[in-house]
């Protein structure tokens, strides 16, 4: 059972993502902000991390940087973003994100990205 950490400050979205992933047999770790997400990631060492960018206090970029500093290099990291501009997406890729999912996303979008990252 693959374990996926979802870091998202909007509780509705977090809940929905968790539901979808669980429906498809993934174990989901939920974090409602960046700080919780970081500690869960270090503690549980998930197979994949899905993280929102726009969050108060610790945002998605900081989470990713911190993880890379802490040595979690191999874990696939997927950004969730409401920002459609390419610049925001590229910035994420630049600092080491493996992929990104743009809000709003369909269930299929989410699953295909997760699956493709996990099979790699």
């Amino acid at each position, binding site marked *: 059972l693959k374990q996926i950490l979802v870091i998202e400050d909007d509780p*509705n979205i977090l809940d*929905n993502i968790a*539901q979808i992933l669980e429906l498809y047999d993934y174990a989901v770790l939920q974090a409602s902000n960046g700080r919780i997400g970081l500690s869960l990631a270090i503690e549980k060492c998930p197979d994949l991390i899905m993280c929102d960018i726009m969050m108060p206090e610790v945002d998605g970029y900081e989470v990713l940087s911190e993880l890379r500093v802490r040595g979690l290099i191999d874990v696939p990291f997927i950004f969730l973003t*409401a920002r459609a501009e390419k610049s925001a997406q590229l910035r994420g890729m630049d600092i080491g994100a493996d992929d990104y999912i743009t809000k709003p996303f369909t*269930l299929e979008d989410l699953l295909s990205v997760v699956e493709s990252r996990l099979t790699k």
Partner: protein
Amino acid sequence: MLTTRRSETSSPVILVADDNLYSRDILGRMLQAEGYQVIEAENGYQALSQLRAHHPAIMLLDIQMPGLNGLEVCQRMREENDDTPIIIVTAMDEQDAVEQAFTSGASDYVTKPIDWSILRHRLRRLLLTLQVMDDLETERTKLNEHRNHLKQLVDERTAELLATNQALQQEILARQEAEKQQDRLIAGLRAVIATVDDLMATPDTDTLYKRAVELAREKLGVERCAIFVESSEYLRGTYGTDMAGNTTPEHEATVPKGNNAAEQFRKIGPSEKQWLVKDATHTYWDGNEHRSVGHGWTGLSRVRSAQRSIGVFFNDAAISQTLVDPLLQEVISVYCSLLGAVIEQKSIEEALQHKSAYLSALHEATLALVQRLDLKEALETIIQRAGELVGTPHSYLEVYEPQSHELVVKIGLGCFEVDSGEHRALDEGLGRKVWQTGKIFSIEDYAHWSGRLPNPLYDNVHAMIGIPLYAGLEIVGILGLASLNSDQQFNQSEIEILTRFGELASIALHNSRLYADLQNELFERRRAEKALAHERDLLQSLMDNIPDTIYFKDTQSRFTRINDAQARILGLKEPQEALGKADFDFQPKQLSDEFYAEEQRLLATGEPILDRLEYNPTPDGQERWFSATKVAIRDRLGKIVGLVGVSRNVTEYKRMEATLRYALEKQNELNELKSRFIAMASHEFRTPLAIISSSTGIIRIANDKITIPQREQHFAKIENAIHQIVQLLDDVLALGQAEGGKLPFNPERIDIKAFCQEIVDEMQTTLSEIPVIAFSATTHSAPIWADMKLMRQIITNLISNAIKYSPLNNEIRVELSVNSELVELRVSDHGIGIPEKDLVHLFEPFHRAGNVGTIQGTGLGLAILKKAVERHAGTVKVQSQTNVGTTFIVQLPILQETIR
């Protein structure tokens, strides 16, 4: 003899002559007792010898004595001229003897026996008499002496007067003679002076000598005279006088060295003026030789100027065979001095005339060169004038032709006129000599010279001279002059003059060669000058008309030229006023320092200053900007000699640029705001859309796997998200309207207190739970002008925010205060507060504080609120502290109805 008797140092001596010892003794004793000195004689002989030996004052003589008696003694004494007073001592009976004694010279007598008182008395009387007589004698002697002296004086004076008288007589005669001589001398000198004008009027030196001889005879009374002038070898004749008393030329006459007269002349010392030879041979010149006419006196007078001896004036009286008058010689001496002065004056004048002629000829010839006359004309002028100066019209100028290696006669004057254009080989005639030696060559008698040209034309040529003409080191021609006069030779000073003219001719030839080149060069130069003048005009008109300031400075940063525009900047009326001055003289020190520093750097490195912006406020402090360009000026060698600067007043551009930049900044700001707004808006829309998308996805895929409540939950999520989107759309629209200035504003009269109360009450009822909204107002009723819809939005937004961010449901305060000017609404909560870093961005669209957590919001409410407040010309401020609470303060001015 008398003197002994007058002895004053001792008592009188008395001789007592008595043959009776007893008598003698008594007498002696008596006399001694009376103070007399006594000598004795016992007889007549003894008495005489005692007299002779002792010269007693008185003798007492006894008449009766053996041998020689008293009378005889008296007689003897008479014979011997002894006048010693004698007192006869006699007996009473010897009366006859007494008489005899008196006759014999006795003075007195006493009788024996001697009455002492009588004797004493008689002695005294006799002695007194003797004394008186003695004094008388002395007086008489003195008188005699005086008389003799007077007589002598009278004699001497008389002799003296006689001598003086004689001398005076002689002197008067001498003086009369001298006056006569003097009169003659004066007459002679007057005559000399009278000759001055005559002598001065003579046209030349030769005439002067002739006239001098004539005048000496006519005016001074000289019988015969001649003037010889000195030369190095001999005395040479000028004019003389023949035996008939007429003037004869004696130019051929010479007095060689060693000649008697010459030697005599030479003997005249330099300080002496005159010499009279007493046994000279008188001669006269018959045209061939001096002929002797006898012997006599000859006067030689030196004719001299102040500086030098000129010659000698001979004169004699050979015609009349008389002697020359010495006084006349004096006059002649003066005449000769005068003659010397006149000759000197004449020779100076002649030298001056000659010099002047030379100079004017030189000037004329030079002028001919300067005026760039035709070469032929110039050369003609030169050689013609040269010929005139040395007194010959015969001259020519040959020019060397390099092609044919010949001399060509360019110009021939006088007897050479026919030679013009002739070609001459370099190895013949005078030309050959000059060509070979490269020096001036002079021939005394060309006609008989072995190297002469055979042409019979030259048979009459005597003196001839050839002068080489040089261009640099090469001979380019020959100037030749000739004299047909057998007397004439070219002397040294003439050769010098000709050399000068030769130089001029050389220059003329040289110039003619340069002339063409010069013409070309001149043409080129004129063209260049014209171009330069054109350039200068262009520059001047550029400088005068361009609005930019232009200035030139030297290496000390001093202005050397500026245009009108720069003059105006410096506050000057005329550009010339700036010349030689620097910025320091006109501009503020700080600015001048800057200029000076940058200019000195430029002058040192040569690096230009290009379009440098300079702030240079006007004298009254107005903003003024210049764009300055400064470039170094270099001379032909590349050395920096100054700089040129051009400045443009760019104040207007600068202002426009500032305005533009401001506008651009605003535009950029707005653009950024817009793109940020769009990005934010997109983000805010995407979040609820993501919920809708994911929830519908779950319902669609896993409808059978989820529970009904779960499904209901998803629908609720979807509805909420849609509501959120709608809210967002409303806010965006409202904000869009506000940003675009299109916020509807319809103020109406509202009672703000009642209005607030109504909204508070409304919101209170919608809240299911506490908090409690506490409303307080400072006034009972406060009607103001405001837009009701916007006012509602403002109050609702503030209260709902307060509620939203107060999770502990603490009380919320709404306070209203109204005064005559302001409406102030304060809404305070005890909620989570706003972090300090978010306060500044609080009213920006989509900005939400970091501590809002999951509390929903679009981040547009306060932005809209701010616009609504501003629409009322009011302000909104916020005071907040995290976890303590927040107070929003809205202040609105009381609007008047008219504002609408």
